[in-house]
């Protein structure tokens, strides 16, 4: 039954979004730029969801870099909470508003592109001289149009507290069995085994994915038994006291803070924590690739950068991206400040990457376990739903709401519809 209806005009959502956004942005970059001529003062509004010190510092560094190169331009960085970013961008697009540049979870490009919040980049990309230096795995395409690019790659590794490992007499693990033996020894010595995120949102799915695929699970052929085995493993970690059940309340920031406190042997966390580790951890630490099997995969994530659909000056906004995120110097700034891996092949060869003890294991992970995020078999419209479904299964087992078998059965049933 397909009956077309005239939608209620404009909508209060648009009105409230406009009010909320004007409160956040102080008027919005688009409106300000409309008033500015090409020689007058101009503003590039950048929406991001960074709350960690190092990531905020990078945004400020990019702002300074671009403003120094362009006297009449002001870059306005606007913080939007992570879980409100997508809905605000889509609502703003419906109201004819929005930022000039959006920095968001690259895996959710399809959600924003389908919602009409982003401007296709194909034309700009064709004219970009260094396009061939950027890996195709960080270009986000929806319905054959390119909407976002990543200036860097973020991924998960296994952080370890070298002092605890020395004390219990184990080496950094290379297999899951070694990891579990090390966690058992750490727990016996009075330490916590591991920290990770079990939050029932996209962050939970991002963290769970390596452990799902470790057991042979894939979205191409969702196997309930493999998923159940993966969930059983994490349930055991909780039962043994290696992983706190409280992980269900933690986003990815909190577990690293717990690790940095020095009482936990391992942390499943990303390269972007490099700056925070240097600042907060007063003990020896290191990183190794997650000790996965041959089937194991680690998402190659990171923030996507895109132009807002209603940017009044997309040329200037694209210039901002070219001179910050896509610029070799800009990518090395991200590397030095945050620890993000450059997406340009020339910047990736810099000795800052190849000789860095923390980043080298992440580079190794890219080659060994790197996987497209999100999986290309997931339909664009199902990305958000799939992430929540899998994260809820992960969270339900860690939090003891469901048994691994029940959670795996419910999740695979849901996946049948989502992947259809």
């Amino acid at each position: 039954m397909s009956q077309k209806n005239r939608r209620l005009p404009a909508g209060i959502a648009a009105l409230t979004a406009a009010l909320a956004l004007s409160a956040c942005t102080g008027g919005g970059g688009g409106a300000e730029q409309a008033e500015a001529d090409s020689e007058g003062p101009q503003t590039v509004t950048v929406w991001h969801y960074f709350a960690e010190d190092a990531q905020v510092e990078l945004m400020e560094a990019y702002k300074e870099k671009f403003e120094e190169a362009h006297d009449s331009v002001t870059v306005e960085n606007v913080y939007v909470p992570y879980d409100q970013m997508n809905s605000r961008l889509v609502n703003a697009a419906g109201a004819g508003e929005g930022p000039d540049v959006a920095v968001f979870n690259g895996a959710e490009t399809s959600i924003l592109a389908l919602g009409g919040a982003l401007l296709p980049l194909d034309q700009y990309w064709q004219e970009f001289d260094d396009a061939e230096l950027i890996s195709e795995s960080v270009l986000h395409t929806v319905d054959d149009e390119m909407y976002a690019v990543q200036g860097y790659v973020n991924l998960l590794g296994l952080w370890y507290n070298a002092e605890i490992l020395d004390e219990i007499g184990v080496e950094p693990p290379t297999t899951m069995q070694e990891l579990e033996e090390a966690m058992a020894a750490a727990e016996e010595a009075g330490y916590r085994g591991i920290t990770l995120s079990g939050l029932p949102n996209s962050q939970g799915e991002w963290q769970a994915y390596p452990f799902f695929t470790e057991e042979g699970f894939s979205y191409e052929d969702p196997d309930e038994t493999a998923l159940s085995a993966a969930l059983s493993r994490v349930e055991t970690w909780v039962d043994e006291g290696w992983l706190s059940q409280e992980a269900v309340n933690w986003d990815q920031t909190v577990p690293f803070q717990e690790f940095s406190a020095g009482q936990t042997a391992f942390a499943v966390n990303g390269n972007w924590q490099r700056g925070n580790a240097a600042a907060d951890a007063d003990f020896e630490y290191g990183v190794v690739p997650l000790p996965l099997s041959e089937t194991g995969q680690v998402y190659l994530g990171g923030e996507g950068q895109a132009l807002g659909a209603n940017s009044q000056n997309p040329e200037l906004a694209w210039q901002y991206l070219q001179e910050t995120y896509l610029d070799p110097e800009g990518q090395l700034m991200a590397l030095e400040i945050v620890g993000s891996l450059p997406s340009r092949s020339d910047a990736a060869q810099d000795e800052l990457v190849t000789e860095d003890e923390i980043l080298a294991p992440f580079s190794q992970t890219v080659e060994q376990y790197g996987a497209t995020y999100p999986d290309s078999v997931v339909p664009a419209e199902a990305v958000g739903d799939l992430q929540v479904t899998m994260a809820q299964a992960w969270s339900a087992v860690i939090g003891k709401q469901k048994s691994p078998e029940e959670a795996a059965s419910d999740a695979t049933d849901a996946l049948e519809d989502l992947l259809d």
Partner: protein
Amino acid sequence: MALPLAGEQPAAQATTVQHGPSAASSAPRRRGTRGGSSSRRYLIFLLPAAVFMAVFAVFPLLQLAWISLHDVTQRTLNAPDWEFAGLANYIRGFSAGESLPAVTRTLTVVFIVTAGGMILGLTSAIALRTRGRWSACLLAVMVFVWALPPVVNGSVWKFLLAENGLVNTVLTALGSPRPVPFLYDPQWALISVACVAAFAVIPFNALVFRAALMTIPPEVFEAAAVDGASRFQEIRYIMLPAVKGTTLVLLVLTVVYGFRSFDFIYVMTFGGPGTATATLPFLGYLQAFNRYDYGLGSATSFLAVAGVFLLAGLYAWSIRREEKQG
């Protein structure tokens, strides 16, 4: 001296009531003109509130109902037309097994919030009935707690109830063998967020109850003391009857407050572990803004709105009844 003083209020009210007819009978023509003019003036005063309500309450609700009857996803949200889906979104919510457990969780939260908020609100009001420095200080603290934004309040409680938080530290010092899983056990998490929501509503309820208690003339308590009434008898036979009308109104308001439980859940558990604290409003949020199925999310949210509507109707009825009795 006391009794005449106590009788002054009804007398004053009677004078006021008599004044209208008396003025009307002495100047019938002027009444007609003035009455029509003043009622129009009332309408003008009502207009800003009415416009505000229409734009920020009625229209969004209509929009919500409209979306719930259509297939709206991130692909079609900003499209000019939406495909009509009838009740498919409502049916899908229940057939997927999400809505019914969410209704149960919502009712659990409503029960805890209402019971805790009403009983502790009244208890606090009775304790704070007397005027004094300590009473004033405590009242100020309660108003502060009441005025705290839920995000701040929830974040503070999230720290307090964490595995290594203050509450568990105290419990461990008192001999608890292991931390209480306030926010990460499915049963405890639902109870905890409901208790925090109840805690947040106690100040408001206490202030309203206290206002009702303060209308009891002190001579009534003096007479009760002369008659040898115990403290319990004062509460049972003087205070509880005095707040009866207020209780009904406050009960409805507290139930509505519990029914729209969202903010504390969002801050403290994000609906987890798994879906253990996903009440109807939170489930609606999750479906609309994390799964981007706006039609399904609107249907779930509209169920919550329907519940609130029912209670709002009950509230309006109870207010009118109390006014008539008053």
